[in-house]
């Protein structure tokens, strides 16, 4: 479980002569075990926020503090180690490696750990069981449906026992019924394993199933509201 603090976080890009303020002074705290959705229009800064949280980008200014560790001080190598050992990723387009089967894809993050994890394979199998894909563990991504591929990606995001899982439009490539199954699966992982989830989505029905919805507009937090009651109603 991770507690995340964002302190006056900004990310500016140069696009030709224009300065794009993708994120412009965002301060937030996400508590351990929360399931947070980030919504907003295209260009509102959702993905930039997720990339900064996932240590894939460095901020122009401000700080990202994960469990008390100020990530601004970390070099590229340490950021990679932190990503590998503490953060899981789920992407819109699944991003499974085509040459690996489902089990090997789930186990991919184990490959880059500093120390060999003797229980890694058992955990990968257990996670494949949890996403109900044990019978498909030998299948390549090309032999899986969109929903199955994203379930493999969810299992992969959990294999290193991360404190934080980041989802970038994780239901963007599947139909609405599968979307609900996937978000329920993530919710289950969040509740049963206590992992903090931050999911970027433009689907309000998906956002409605999270604990808290942060709305971004022009790189700033437009609203930040708990959804406990709505979740209960769903």
């Amino acid at each position, binding site marked *: 479980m991770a507690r995340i603090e964002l302190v006056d976080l900004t990310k500016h890009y140069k696009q030709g002569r224009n300065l794009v303020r993708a994120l412009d002074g965002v301060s937030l705290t996400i508590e351990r075990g929360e399931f947070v959705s980030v919504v907003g229009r295209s260009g509102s800064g959702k993905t930039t926020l997720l990339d900064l949280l996932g240590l894939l980008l460095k901020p122009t200014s401000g700080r990202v503090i994960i469990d008390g560790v100020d990530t601004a001080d970390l070099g590229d190598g340490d950021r*990679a180690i932190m990503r590998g050992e503490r953060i899981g990723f789920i992407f819109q387009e699944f*991003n499974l490696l085509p040459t*690996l089967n489902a089990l*090997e894809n789930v186990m991919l993050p184990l490959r880059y750990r500093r120390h060999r994890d003797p229980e890694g394979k058992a955990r990968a199998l257990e996670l494949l069981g949890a996403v109900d894909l044990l019978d498909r563990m030998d299948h390549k991504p090309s032999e899986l449906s969109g929903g199955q591929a994203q379930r493999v990606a969810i299992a992969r995001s959990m294999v290193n026992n991360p404190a934080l899982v980041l989802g970038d439009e994780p239901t963007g490539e599947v139909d609405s019924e599968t979307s609900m199954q996937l978000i329920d699966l993530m919710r289950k992982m969040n509740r049963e394993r206590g992992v903090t989830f931050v999911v970027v989505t433009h689907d309000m029905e998906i956002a409605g199933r999270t604990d808290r919805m942060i709305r971004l507009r022009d790189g700033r937090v437009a609203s930040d509201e708990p959804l406990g009651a709505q979740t209960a109603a769903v």
Partner: protein
Amino acid sequence: MLEILRNLTRRKLRTALTVLGITIGVLALTTMGSLAEKSNSLIDGGVHYFRDHVSVAAASNGGFGGILTIDKAKDVLKVDGVQAACADTGSNVKTDLDLSFNFGPGDQVIAEQPGCQQYSTFKFSYAGGHAIDDYGSGQLVLGSDIAREYKKKVGDSMELPQPPKKFNPDFVGHQFTIVGILEKTLTAPDSFAIVSFKDGQMLFGDSLPSALKGHVDATQLATGINVYGKPGVDLDTLANRINDQVAGVRAIPPSTLVKAFETASVVLTGITTGSALLALVIGGLSVINTMLMAVTERVREIGLKKAVGARTRHILVEFITEATIIGAIGGAIGLLVGWALTTVVNAGLTSNNQAELFLLTLRLVGLAVAFAVGLGALAGVIPALRAARLDPVTALRHQ
């Protein structure tokens, strides 16, 4: 590792063509290299063979192959600094014109005056049998190549010179008993047929044009004199002294011959290096191209790997390993084809009574393997660096 092997099979044709590029390079290196190794070994042997004495030939001929008389050896012996002057004879084993390709002079019947072998630092060792009786007759020792060419073993008999294919009324042949076969020396003696000096003179006399035969006494003939210096005597100086003091002969300073051999060696090594460079250009560029294409195709995968914790060195190692495997596979195939080719050509030449053309040495095999693997790894560096330096965010969203 399994993923790397599977990645290689993603674009089968492209991988196969790249492997072919390396294969051609290593094949060139193997065949050209073994050609150079064969001739270099002859050259090394030549350097060894000529370094310990001064070769003296008839002046009129300006080189080897002229006619001397053994009296000249006595004259040379009188020159200050000469320890021994041994007349020798050389004639061809084959009567017919030898059109086969040889690095050396081809199969030669060699004979030296009795007792001279002790002065030479080039010592023969015997794979079977023993040396000829220096004062005897009808005995023969064969070099390893010539023994194999004629499929002879100790105890067999052999006619010298070999009879011509077309009947020739002037041909005179003599039967010899093979008393010994030399160990392979990888140089000139491999194609020597060694007989006693008396027999050598007889064979040389027989080989003379018929117009000349009746006018010479074969027992006085020689084709050259091998002059051995006393300890501490400079052989080049000795050669000059012989030229000054003995009329009708031409002594060749050993350094001139050694230099000529070494120049030839440098030229042949140049050919090897040239073929290696050719392989480097062809194979290396194709590997770089293939790996750059692989990086472009796998940008998103690289982004994903970085997102899930891969560091720069992980990506570097993965791509360099893939390139190295391409190099190793190409190298192994090239080496195998090269080995098969050189073996088949050598066997073909031998069965045709010709000398072997190729010598695939262990050091050449080692060089080819190291070259292919090293080249693959080196060619993988630039694409791997490009992959490793990819920004994960850009890579992940690459279309």
